[in-house]
């Protein structure tokens, strides 16, 4: 099996509110897939559809080749899930909660639980409600990872974790991949997941706006150029050039962005006297923001 998750025109409306709007994508078996988008984009909606906690308005999802609804129990046995706001029974001790969740799975070797707890530095004797948000999130990570599921579905797993634990978490994800497990994780911050993801999807307002490797997205990022001339130049002339956007002229300084080759821009500029030239690539976080806020791509 080469496809871990396949979404086809997946749509979810909450009454008149849009949750997800005809989303199609495929997650390959064995990859770490980043699912990115701003708050309200539809990340949690997608994830809850995958787990059959909610049902699609139209379209379909296949997860590990199974139907989330018809094969729910079989599928849940093979997946680990961490909710966006992980909640367990607060009155119980962490170890008690995990032991019960393990029983629901038909048993998990105890050393898996204690091993993960030691690694994440979780006190299994502490009552859940006495734990900080970050420590509670760690309990959530333990229950998602403890049975070494084929597929990990993690909704904003890094939220609330301090940087050190974030690194441990990323190591765990890397090990899961080495182990042949598939990881589907959402985030609204690219830099938090960039290091471990093979591919990322960016969604916005319930629709897919980009899907590629982080490297390819970086290659796609445009060049920011600032040219100073000996005298003011007509901005319109530059705006018409291929790949050139966001042109603005301020006195004798012209700034713009360039997608692809800067050849046309350089040749056009060469018709005037150039006194200064500055160019750098947009950093990834900015590119990412552009996907969030720019015009919706087809």
């Amino acid at each position, binding site marked *: 099996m080469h496809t871990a998750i396949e979404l086809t025109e997946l749509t979810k409306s909450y009454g008149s509110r849009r949750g997800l709007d005809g989303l199609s994508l495929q997650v390959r078996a064995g990859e770490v897939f980043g699912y990115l988008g701003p708050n309200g984009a539809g990340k949690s909606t997608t994830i809850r559809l995958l787990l059959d906690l909610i049902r699609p308005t139209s379209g379909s999802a296949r997860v590990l080749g199974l139907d989330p609804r018809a094969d729910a129990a*079989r599928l*849940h046995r093979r997946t680990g899930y961490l909710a966006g706001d992980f909640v367990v029974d607060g009155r119980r001790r962490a170890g008690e909660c995990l032991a*019960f969740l393990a029983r*629901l799975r038909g048993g998990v070797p105890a050393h898996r639980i204690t091993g993960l707890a030691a690694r994440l530095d979780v006190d299994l004797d502490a009552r859940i409600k006495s734990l900080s948000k970050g420590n509670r999130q760690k309990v959530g990570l333990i229950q998602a990872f403890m049975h070494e599921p084929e597929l990990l579905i993690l909704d904003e797993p890094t939220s609330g974790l301090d940087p050190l634990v974030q690194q441990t978490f990323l190591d765990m994800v890397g090990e899961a991949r080495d182990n042949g497990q598939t990881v589907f994780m959402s985030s609204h911050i690219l830099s938090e997941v960039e290091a471990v993801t093979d591919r990322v999807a960016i969604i916005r307002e319930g629709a897919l706006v980009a899907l590629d490797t982080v490297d390819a997205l970086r290659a796609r990022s445009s060049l920011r150029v600032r040219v100073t001339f000996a005298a003011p130049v007509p901005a319109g002339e530059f705006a018409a050039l291929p790949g050139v956007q966001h042109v603005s002229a301020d006195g004798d300084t012209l700034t713009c962005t360039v997608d692809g080759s800067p050849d046309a821009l350089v040749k056009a500029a060469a018709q005037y006297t150039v006194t200064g030239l500055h160019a750098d690539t947009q950093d990834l976080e900015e590119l990412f923001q552009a996907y969030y806020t720019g015009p919706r791509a087809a």
Partner: protein
Amino acid sequence: MTTNGGAMFTKTLYDNRRIFTVWALATGLLALMYAAFYPQVSADAMASVPESMSGFGLDDTSTAAGYLQGPVFGLLVPLLATFYGAATGARTISADEESGYLDLLLAHPIGRARLLLQRFAALAAGALLIGGAVLAAMLAVRDGADLGSVGAGGFAAQTLNLTLLALLFGALATGLGAATGLTRATVFGVTAGLGVAVFALNGFAPQIGAGGLRYLTPFHYYIGGEPLKNGVQVADAAVLAAASAVLIAAGTWRFVRRDLGR
């Protein structure tokens, strides 16, 4: 293949071990205290009960069964059973759906119907415990309080109906929460409120010339056949049990189809 068997049932029972014990002990003790008053009450002859309240069965104190059908089995214990059902049933689905814990549980390999049924089974065990405690209390106080005219079979029949009554309101609260996703407080309020309302209807119906309405209330099936005197009323018990089954079936039917709320 590994299975989780009755993990949800045993966990629910374990988590509720104290609260169920408190419900059973409190109900049993209150029943015991009120039953123990019988010798005094029968001497005083309670003529003070207003005519309009006669439907509650508080006026007949001439026999032990008559007295017990009044304050004990006619008022106190069934209302406690109703509240037990409403409070516990509101925790079957609603409480965990409200907190978000249900998302986690149902992402595990336990089907929705199975989760609901195992938790309801734990509720039923708690209801049995209440019935058992009340029965034990009655048998303990029987001779000391001049209640010897009611046989052990009569007590057993009435406490069976008590358990079925608790189960019925538990099924109503469970089914309501499962079907709608309403909050725990709402589910409890609606169920307990409805319980008190139909209790009053059962009591007042004869006075307002609508005696037939009694057949619509569970309290009629719970005590109308006077199990203390007549022993097990199979048809009445069956009505209570069947109503629970219908409520659970309807709640489950809807629960497996709807979206879980957050």
